[in-house]
């Protein structure tokens, strides 16, 4: 392996003609020059769930920061209040989320200082975030997060998703990470028959999904927060725990 201390000529991090090019991301290459891109998330959060209801949006996430398979930090908040009409939850790398949180908080402060009565709408925030995430991925230095953005603006609920590739969409129910496989079908089943949930029904649905995720996601934790945004503003409640039922343990048979 050559040690590349020379300036990259054609484009940053690109191959020089005639040279062996090793793509950033091959972790076995020690000494092929500094790698300036986020390759591996370190401390990560698992699923974030979001559901629209009649009069607002609810987002939930557990309070665990995993270090690989180690349940390292068991009291971290992955939900944040952006402003009085927007909330945000992130899964993925926690350091990147903290960075994002810092940037967004500063943006919101700067906007308050303008004093024109305008605040970032959830759609605006979502659009901005999509651009940022896409731009970072194009520079091969992503913010390794999947973000769920919820809000209530002008009488309308908003629920959006942005991930580290810049993929973005809106949906009445959203789940990231493992939740996409386990919780999303549960949420869709309820919402397809009854698209207009009440706040309590949404809460029940979320808690049911969180319980299932705790049962079946190996990187989850039984301590979570729920953030709700309505006409009246933002409320982040927590920490809560799911009531778990292990009765079926007795029914296991076959090897004693």
């Amino acid at each position, binding site marked *: 392996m050559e040690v590349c201390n020379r300036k990259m000529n054609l484009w940053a991090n690109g191959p020089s003609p005639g040279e062996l090019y090793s793509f950033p991301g091959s972790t076995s290459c020690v000494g092929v020059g500094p790698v300036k891109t*986020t390759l591996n998330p370190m*401390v990560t959060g698992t699923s974030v769930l979001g559901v629209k209801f009649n009069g607002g949006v609810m987002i939930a996430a557990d309070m665990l920061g995993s*270090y690989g398979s180690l349940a390292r930090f068991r009291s971290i908040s992955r939900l944040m209040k952006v402003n009085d009409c927007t909330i945000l939850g992130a899964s993925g790398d926690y*350091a990147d989320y*903290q*960075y994002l949180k810092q940037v967004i908080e500063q943006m919101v402060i700067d906007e308050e200082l303008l004093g024109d009565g305008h605040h970032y709408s959830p759609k605006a925030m979502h659009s901005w975030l999509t651009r940022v995430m896409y731009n970072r991925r194009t520079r091969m230095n992503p913010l390794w997060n999947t973000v769920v953005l919820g809000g209530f603006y002008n009488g309308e609920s908003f629920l959006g998703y942005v991930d580290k590739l810049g993929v973005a969409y809106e949906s009445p129910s959203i789940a990231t990470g493992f939740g996409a496989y386990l919780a999303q079908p549960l949420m869709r089943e309820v919402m397809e028959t009854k698209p207009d949930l009440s706040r309590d029904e949404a809460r029940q649905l979320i808690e049911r999904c969180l319980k299932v995720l705790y049962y079946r996601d190996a990187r989850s934790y039984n301590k979570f927060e729920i953030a709700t945004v309505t006409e009246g503003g933002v409320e982040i409640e927590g920490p809560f725990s799911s009531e778990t039922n292990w009765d079926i343990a007795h029914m296991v048979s076959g090897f004693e």
Partner: protein
Amino acid sequence: MDDLLESDWTTEEVSTGTTIIAAVFDGGVVIGSDSRVSAGQAVVNRVLNKVCRLHDKIYCSISGSAADAQAVVDIVDYQMELHGIQMGQPPLVQAAATIVKDICYKYKEELVAHLLVAGWDHKYGGQVYGTLGGMMIKQQFAVGGSGSTYIYGFADSAFKPGMTKE
């Protein structure tokens, strides 16, 4: 044959195969660490001080690559001294932790170091901050380093908030 045998540790990165721990007690913080530096399997330094001063009442304990961690400590030490003089009063532990976190986050891919920042300030008393992976998280107690895996369970069960120095 001999070449194969001896080249192993000469090319290994020098790292601290470490256990570091910091805990808040009633009145301040306690920080501790081991003192071994290894390059692969060889122990190259058995008396390294892994508890480094960032300011009079703010220390950090280092783990990961010895060089990386010491480089970060050097930078933070300088910045903290400057900050303390500018503020005219002892700096907050949070300030030290933030500087460490900023460096570790910005150079996340190049550095392999985990620093536990702990200290006492007049505003918030004793505090411990973990900066794993470029995040900053305030904790009642923290463990770090490759040896810390063995004491997670013990630390979890033995720690209670509001303990005395003993």
